[in-house]
């Protein structure tokens, strides 16, 4: 990521904060609802889907960031980060499914869905980008005396 935060990145952080705040509120509220007054029928369906909506909103904020970031190198790094997240998520899910197919592990995912592993991959990709940013902005690289 850039050392100075771009306007697109600031908007991303703001949107992400809003989505995550709504998610935390909904996951607590819906959890309480299903424990104390479990809804039925279409209401149960609607209530169960509610916490997923801010997660979808998070995907939207990421795609908005890719759309709005004007620095093409930073955009390239973000695309690479997203592709790494996708590859990481698909790899974990593929291996897990084969383990389930041969009954090596129990069925179910313990509550950790594809989105969870995608975000883990995004985090790992983000650490990779942060390392690249430190490398790219090392003070010695800006030493004019070294230039021929």
């Amino acid at each position, binding site marked *: 990521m*850039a050392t*100075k935060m771009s306007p697109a990145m600031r908007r991303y952080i703001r949107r992400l904060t809003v989505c995550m705040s709504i998610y935390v509120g909904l996951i607590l509220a819906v959890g309480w609802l299903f424990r104390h007054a479990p809804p039925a029928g279409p209401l149960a369906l609607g209530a169960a889907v509610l916490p997923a909506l801010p997660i979808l909103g998070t995907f939207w904020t990421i795609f908005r960031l890719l759309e709005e970031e004007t620095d093409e190198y930073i955009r390239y790094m973000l695309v690479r980060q997203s592709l790494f997240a996708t590859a990481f998520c698909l790899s974990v899910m593929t291996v897990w499914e084969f383990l389930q197919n041969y009954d090596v592990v129990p069925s179910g995912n313990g509550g950790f869905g594809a989105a969870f592993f995608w975000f883990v991959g995004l985090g790992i990709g983000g650490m990779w980008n942060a390392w690249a940013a430190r490398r*790219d902005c090392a003070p010695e690289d800006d030493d*004019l005396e070294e230039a021929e």
Partner: protein
Amino acid sequence: MNNRLRVLRAEHGWSQQDLADRLGVSRQSVNAIEKGRYDPSLPLAFTIADVFGLPIEAIFLREESPE
């Protein structure tokens, strides 16, 4: 693709941040282009050429071209 960005920047007495500000990109981008880790798009290459007042081919060189 090789480039003469670092040399041209030094000739103008600009830091990477100075050049980044003129191009409207991050210092990280300038560093990545200088080091050859990233080849800029054609629009950015034209902007770089405009900033230095040179044709693109005087800044960006093919791998096999002697600098």
